[in-house]
């Protein structure tokens, strides 16, 4: 058994909106094993980013963490005081945001943002901080000298993304959360950035949590994978296990729906229906309207997470009955 860096238990995050309440994260329990790359996939709005922000206890208003706990190094983050929380953020968990392009202060030079962040946590002479930052920038193959003196807008998207990656390592965190770090970039850059990330992961043994809607990307990077649907974690397991032996029709659907350069084209099958409306979730298993195997029970009872193999959990009533891989 691996050691878990983060243990999330029964976490729920709610957004109280005028038109109703959204449960963006619904009773999710997830372990993030130390030293591994865990990935969360799911379509847009499935709650990935919200879950990640909960790990930093930074759910944006009007969201509230309505239930659950997040333990890291044995401490419940959700109980932390403001001060401790500020210390915890970035030095324990750092994050590369979905729109990393915009996560730098546009009117402050990169250099100063590095310094500022460092000083918010530890005391050190400026020189030392810059030396460390320069080292990290070189790591992501950027010229420190030029980058330091730049304002964010003076860098290209790929460069900014790399700056953010370097930034996320500034305080040697235990966990780096990568929220769709390559969405806005083209394939070559994307590939390149993942190479860098993998290198960092390997050389520094940093635990990573990767959020993505692109299962192909995940396939390359992750060791473990969790699948989210409508705020719920519906399946989690080892990457190879999931790809070869997924027990949830949604996961299976996602894998099959991903067009590939290799697969036989006949194997690629779209998922029918349309994404769920979080304000108006279907009863029972939220996926049932789109699921070709749905039974009556799926419409009535929300399936619980169950062990279906080593380190492999699934929330589907039918996992024993159906062998997803063989269905065409």
């Amino acid at each position, binding site marked *: 058994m691996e050691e878990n860096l983060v243990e999330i238990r029964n976490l729920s995050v709610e957004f109280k909106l005028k038109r109703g309440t959204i449960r963006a994260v619904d009773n999710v329990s997830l372990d993030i094993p130390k030293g591994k790359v865990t990935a969360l996939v799911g*379509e847009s709005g499935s709650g990935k980013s919200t879950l990640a922000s909960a790990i930093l206890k930074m759910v944006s208003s009007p969201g509230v963490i309505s239930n659950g706990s997040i333990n890291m190094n044995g401490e419940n983050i959700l109980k932390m005081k403001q001060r401790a929380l500020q210390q915890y953020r970035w030095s324990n968990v750092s994050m590369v945001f979905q729109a990393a392009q915009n996560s730098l202060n546009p009117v402050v030079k990169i250099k100063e943002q590095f310094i500022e962040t460092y000083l918010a946590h530890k005391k050190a002479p400026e020189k030392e901080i810059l030396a460390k930052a320069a080292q990290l920038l070189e790591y992501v193959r950027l010229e420190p000298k030029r980058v330091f003196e730049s304002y964010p807008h003076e860098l290209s998207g790929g460069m900014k993304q790399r700056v953010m990656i370097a930034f996320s390592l500034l305080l040697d965190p235990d966990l780096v959360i990568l929220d769709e770090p390559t969405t806005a970039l083209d394939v*070559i850059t994307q590939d390149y950035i993942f190479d860098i990330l993998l290198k960092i992961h390997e050389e520094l043994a940093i635990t990573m949590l990767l959020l993505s809607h692109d299962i192909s990307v995940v396939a390359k990077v992750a060791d473990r994978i969790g699948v989210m649907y409508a705020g719920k974690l519906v399946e989690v397991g080892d990457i190879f296990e999931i790809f070869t032996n997924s027990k949830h029709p949604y996961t299976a659907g996602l894998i099959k729906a991903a067009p590939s350069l290799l697969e036989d084209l006949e194997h690629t099958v779209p998922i029918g229906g349309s994404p769920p409306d979080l304000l108006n979730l279907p009863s029972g298993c939220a996926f049932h309207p789109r699921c070709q195997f749905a039974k009556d029970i799926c419409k009535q009872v929300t399936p619980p997470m169950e062990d279906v193999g080593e380190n492999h959990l699934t929330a589907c009533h039918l996992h024993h009955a159906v062998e997803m891989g063989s269905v065409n």
Partner: protein
Amino acid sequence: MSHLLQLNDVSVIFEGKTDGVKHTIPAMVDVNLSFDSGEIVALVGESGCGKTTLGKVLTGLQKPTKGELFYKGKNVWSMNKAEFAEYRSSVQLVQQDSYAALNPAKTIFQSLSAPILQNKIVKGKKAAHEKVCELLRTVELTPPEQFLEKYPHQLSGGQRQRVLMARAISLNPKLIVADEPVSMVDVSLRLSILNLMAKLNKEMGIAFVYITHDLATARYIAKNGRLAVMYLGKIVELGSVRNVLAAPRHPYLQALLTAVPVPDPKVAKGKRELPLKSLEMPSISNPPSGCAFNPRCPYADETCVLVQPKLDFHGDDLVACHHAERIPEWKLVTLAK
């Protein structure tokens, strides 16, 4: 016989300004390309390489700076009114951002009925209603009545993209230029939209130009069609999808294919090096001399710096590379170790 649509040495050069300094942006350079009825052509390339511009030229939104566009053998930009009108309705466009492509202040019915009424496809509101319903059914938005009175923001991205499709086919076009029609659609829905396009192609005989930067989807939709690869305003490789993907010649395409993620951890996790010298994409406004790819190309030599390669046949396909013959074969399957 003449092609349905043909680009003849077309260049588009924009005037741009950065920091107040004027310079030119050659968004398309000497492109020769033709499209026939009923075929699907996928056009791929990185962001900013001029794909959208090409689409605009095809749809008559952008007058070429140089070269001609022929529709059924007639030069579009010297057509008379009637001919131009025919061309206009025959070549349609589906845009990337389905939200921006629909007037937010108008209902779906209003958006769909206006073109058919104005182009006299139907007469009267009643007939328009019928027709719009039919269109919606064609793009699998059922029951159509449910959508007529909705505003764009009340639909999901996938639904909106289908509405765009419906609008594009409403004028009974011969060809539709689909500019990244699924890049903003949710992963789980992309495939169904692509299937819809395939269906329209098959059942209505509409030719498609599918513009994308995603090679995997390009392969998916244009499995029996052709593939054109663009780099910095130029076509660098052109041929049937099967051939081109099976044996890509141009080093740029090879790099691109290498970078495409594969939804299979066994394959994906295999170590691959990008066959590239440099990652930085040169600026389009100041393209490198000779072969535009030369600063990044691992095979580049002096010729590449000095001479612009021509698009030439190598086997059944066209490639623009001085060393097309010399470059090592690259096979998709080599990925799977």
